[in-house]
């Protein structure tokens, strides 16, 4: 259990996301095939594979350095809608975390900055059936007072999962799925699903015992 996010934990988080994306690539692509163009899984896998290599070359001086490098790499390697969106989100989180460690409140502020970056770039409102619909409830859940970091992350992951389910009845208004009009209804949003993976990964690494960086 961790109560602050330090550099090893940030590294662990991103690596945990990469592992989850690798494992869930097929499912993300399948979701994107239904209402998009069938590349969300391969997009993120390509991106996070590059992120892993980039992090190996990095000696980060701050939590933010990890996340900034992650974001920059995603922008350089992913393309599509998710590359700039997630890339900008990580870069914004990185900019918000200049220190060697961040407490829960600071990390919450970083997550909020990430969401703001996504919304600024993509101009999506909640309910538009995008990543915003998972990130928004996750952020709200993470921010609950008095929770430990691990409890906050766990609550955020659950809220993100609910957010994904809540995208099912929505008609998309942003991204490719919007081209389908009412036919986008009845499917979860692939980007919301990958956002859930981000928060699940956060929950896992913050809950892990042992020294930061080696989540159990």
């Amino acid at each position, binding site marked *: 259990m961790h109560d602050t996010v330090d550099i090893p934990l940030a590294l662990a988080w991103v690596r945990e996301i990469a592992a989850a994306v690798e494992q869930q690539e097929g499912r993300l692509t399948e979701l994107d095939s239904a209402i998009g163009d069938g590349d969300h899984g*391969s997009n993120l896998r390509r991106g996070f594979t590059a992120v892993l290599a980039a992090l190996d070359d990095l000696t980060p001086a701050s939590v933010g350095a990890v996340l900034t490098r992650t974001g920059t790499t995603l922008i350089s390697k992913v393309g599509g809608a998710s590359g700039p969106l997630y890339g900008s989100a990580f870069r914004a989180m990185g900019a918000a975390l200049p220190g060697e460690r961040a407490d829960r409140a600071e990390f919450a502020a970083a997550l909020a900055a990430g969401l703001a970056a996504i919304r600024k770039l993509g101009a999506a409102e909640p309910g538009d059936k995008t990543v915003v619909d998972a990130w928004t409830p996750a952020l709200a859940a993470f921010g609950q007072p008095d929770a430990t970091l691990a409890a906050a992350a766990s609550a955020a992951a659950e809220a993100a999962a609910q957010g994904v389910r809540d995208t099912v009845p929505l008609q998309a208004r*942003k991204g490719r799925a919007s081209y389908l009009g009412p*036919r986008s209804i009845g499917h979860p949003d692939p980007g919301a699903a990958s956002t859930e993976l981000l928060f699940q990964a956060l929950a896992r690494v913050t809950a892990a015992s042992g020294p930061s960086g080696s989540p159990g």
Partner: protein
Amino acid sequence: MKKLINTPDTVLADALAGFAAAHPELTVDLDNRVIVRGSRPAAPKVAVVSGGGSGHEPLHGGFVGPGMLDAACPGEVFTSPVPDQVLAAARAVDSGAGVLLVVKNYTGDVMNFGLAAELAAEEGIEVRTVLVDDDVAVEDSTWTAGRRGTGATVVVEKAVGALAGRGAGLAEVAALGERVNAASRSFAIALTAATVPAAGKPGFDLPEDEIEVGVGIHGEPGRRREALRPARELVAEVVDTILADHDLAAGDEVIALVNGLGGTPLLELYVVYGEVHARLAERGIRIARNLVGNYVTSLDMAGFSLTLTKADPDLLDLWDAPVTTAALTWS
């Protein structure tokens, strides 16, 4: 999935290597994934750069060369290129007169080209962007990401390439691009779904007697599913849908593009063209220039799109200007 590839992960790299080998007259930067015209233009001129996800070949790499694009940036299959590629392209072709980015209106393309434009501007490269959004199957409203860019891209790229070649300034070339886009409408019908290599199976299942009407070029389903009908009836619906959204009147002239989506034989595209020609003739609209073939494809999707661009003497003059590229050549 049946494809002539090595692995889904290497499709773009392998195809680009093949393209480079096949076209020694072009300069292909395999690391940055940028296709650049072979020789510098004689005098400084506005450079025209386009790009987008792969899987739409010959778009865009097939249109690089004198008279059309100065560079193209192919992204992964159905995935817009990354900003680094676009920046590398802009750097490679800017001769001081500025760079026009021709961008198809998709969220990913708009974002990635937008980030690249910012970076290029920071380096002192003057950049303008033309957004192509011609697909009338998508309503341009707050309910959508706006109309998709499809077949009109070819017409825009040909026209701006010709005007840039004549030495026009960046603002003028950009204005032309916007004008050609505004004069263009497209609509597409799919008989089968496309299979993205990384996905490994078709984007949607379509029964043997049904078609998707109003599809884009990324394998997504269309606006609705209908029964397959004779070409004449399908074309009537497509032409009428476009005309309902276009300001074309009897006596007008158009450039018409009957475009195969990748899996449809040329024989069928000519059947379609014949019907388009007849339907427009009934409306008093004359096709002044045409293209029939695979220009803006969607991998192996069977089907076609129709693009109609309202023509005027200036545009026809630019259309007729010489062009020498892998996929479009005339003199």
